[in-house]
């Protein structure tokens, strides 16, 4: 016959008293939880910013079709920018249209092999309008529409025959088509780019903007035409699409082997090209940001430990100040356990208030990054939960000793305390 206090009753009493006590010493509590706030703020800020950057990269990669990877001379993200490594990349052999053609033949597992060359940037004009000089000219092979996941809205994509005959025909990005032909269809019309004339055979579906600039402001023309006009040394990127996600690793392996053969890479030497896929990009991004995250983690930990010591200090003061209260509670039947709970909970509440403010502020300030990148706001709820969890832990760890002290006060001595 030992009726225990229902947990809810005890918690409610303890929580009520915790808020009471914190409210009674607002300045002191605020200063104490400032440390927690800073610790949580810094980690949440970094987490938010990094998540926003990652979103941005993911979106950029959405340029690639599904289960597609890209082959290029330079890595997609690189941090070492000393001359030597850059030289090393520059010494790598270029890719030619021929490389892509041979790859297409030999990489039997691949579904499509596309070639893209961004060659020029300038002003485009039609009889009806003109653009700022930000339109890019892109040489594309027919399969590149698949590998770049470009969808035709009107007319047709570039065809093999355009390529073979290297016809001056063009497919326009959605934005560009609208600018140059605001009143009607672009199909069959002629556009002018740096003195070159193309007749429009297709218009693409819009893709939205990236880094604040439109992804739909380009002219796609046959790759052969571009190479003839700009020279066969023009840098190309090759994209390879696997038939399915399952086949992806095999396709990548086969492509790597074929490329090494084509480029006569000596056996045992590292690849002299980069394979970039959505996955590899994200992994690379994670590796690079690891240092930043670790740094933020260390700063946060130091701040939280310092804050924890602050909490412990203030709780010890609080216990001394409230000696009489503790005596009264003990005298009317509180057990040591009840007193313990009350003070640990008070430390946790104190810590959690700081933690919540830190999370809110961290997310608010961190979301400046997505605003600048023009990606949707991010909410790193996993980090927020971890942060709040750590706050509770700090409260428990640093609140336990003061609470233990409170619980072990002698009731009658405490009642006499002035």
């Amino acid at each position, binding site marked *: 016959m030992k*009726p225990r*206090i229902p947990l809810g009753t005890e918690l409610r009493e303890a929580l009520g008293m915790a808020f009471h006590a914190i409210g009674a010493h607002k300045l002191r509590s605020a200063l104490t939880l400032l440390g927690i706030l800073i610790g949580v703020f810094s980690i949440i800020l970094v987490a938010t910013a990094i998540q926003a950057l990652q979103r941005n990269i993911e979106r950029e990669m959405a340029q690639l079709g599904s289960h597609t990877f890209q082959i290029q001379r330079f890595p997609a993200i690189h941090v070492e920018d000393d001359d030597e490594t850059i030289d090393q990349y520059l010494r790598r052999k270029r890719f030619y249209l021929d490389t892509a053609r041979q790859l297409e033949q030999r990489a039997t597992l691949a579904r499509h092999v596309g070639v893209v060359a961004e060659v020029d940037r300038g002003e485009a004009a039609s009889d009806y309008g003109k653009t700022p000089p930000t339109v890019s000219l892109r040489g594309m092979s027919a399969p590149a529409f698949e590998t770049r996941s470009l969808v035709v809205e009107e007319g047709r994509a570039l065809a093999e025959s355009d390529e073979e005959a290297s016809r001056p025909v063009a497919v326009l990005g959605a934005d560009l088509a609208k600018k140059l032909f605001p009143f009607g269809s672009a199909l069959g019309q002629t556009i002018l780019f740096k003195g070159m004339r193309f007749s429009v055979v297709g218009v693409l579906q819009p893709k939205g903007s990236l880094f604040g600039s439109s992804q739909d402001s380009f002219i796609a023309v046959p790759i052969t035409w571009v190479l003839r006009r700009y020279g066969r040394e023009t840098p190309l990127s090759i994209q390879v699409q696997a038939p399915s996600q399952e086949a992806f690793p095999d396709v990548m392996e086969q492509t790597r082997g074929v490329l090494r053969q084509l480029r006569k890479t000596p056996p045992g030497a590292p690849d002299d090209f980069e394979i970039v896929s959505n996955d590899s990009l994200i992994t690379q991004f994670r590796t690079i940001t690891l240092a930043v995250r670790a740094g933020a983690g260390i700063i946060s930990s130091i701040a939280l430990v310092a804050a924890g010591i602050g909490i412990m200090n203030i709780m010890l003061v609080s216990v001394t100040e409230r000696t009489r*209260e503790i005596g009264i509670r003990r005298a009317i039947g*509180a057990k040591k356990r009840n007193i313990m709970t009350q003070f640990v909970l008070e430390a946790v509440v104190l810590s959690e208030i700081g933690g919540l403010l830190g999370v809110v502020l961290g997310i608010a300030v961190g979301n400046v990054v997505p605003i600048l990148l023009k990606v949707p706001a991010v909410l790193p709820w996993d980090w927020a939960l971890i942060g709040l969890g750590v706050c509770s832990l700090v409260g428990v760890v640093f609140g336990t000793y003061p609470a233990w002290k409170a619980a072990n006060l002698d009731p*009658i001595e405490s009642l006499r305390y002035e």
Partner: protein
Amino acid sequence: MPLIRIRDLTRHYVMGSETVHALRGVSLDIEKGEYLAIMGPSGSGKSTLMNLLGCLDTPNSGTYELNGTNVADMDDNALAEVRNREIGFVFQSFNLLARSDSLHNVELPLVYAGVSMEERLERARQALANVGLAERMHHRPNELSGGQRQRVAVARALVNNPSIVLADEPTGNLDSRTGEEILGLFEQLSRRGNTIIVVTHEEHVAQHARRIIRIRDGLIAADEIKPRPRSAVVPIAPIA
């Protein structure tokens, strides 16, 4: 078997080189349902004895058996439970939580007894009404008069329906009419078989008890049993 059985209880306080002997060997049996007054000059050890009886303090020597159990053998949790369920303590200095209102102060023993919220509030309100403080539920101790504080302390002691009421000068700050009302509450409890122990300086308060113990210099000087105690006026409201 007496409800309370103490033998040769001593309690002294060491103050530097000096030792104050507050109790020098007190033996006493108190039966269940007794109404007892403890009298004696200031500093004679009355409060010290009450603290021991209330399981708040431990003696330096001697034994205290409560309901047949040696209190020295009880662990901290058991003592807390006894204080919570069996004993209602009215402290000489009230000992109310300064930051909580009357209602919460009175409700607090029920919190530690694990009583549900609605029942707690209901019983705390009733207890406050019984001491004539229905209008002062949301006042904090520093917003109450001395007598009102004393009545809050009485309400808190009685709210848990304790079988033993230990009241250290419960009427010290009260006018005679309010004092009589509090004593009436005690009398009602006594008639229902609860044990009442009251410390007082006032002869007329002691007259309500059936037994008066006089303490002098930490020793029992007299133990009188009266055949017919004086009756108190009817309380403001009957105990629920």
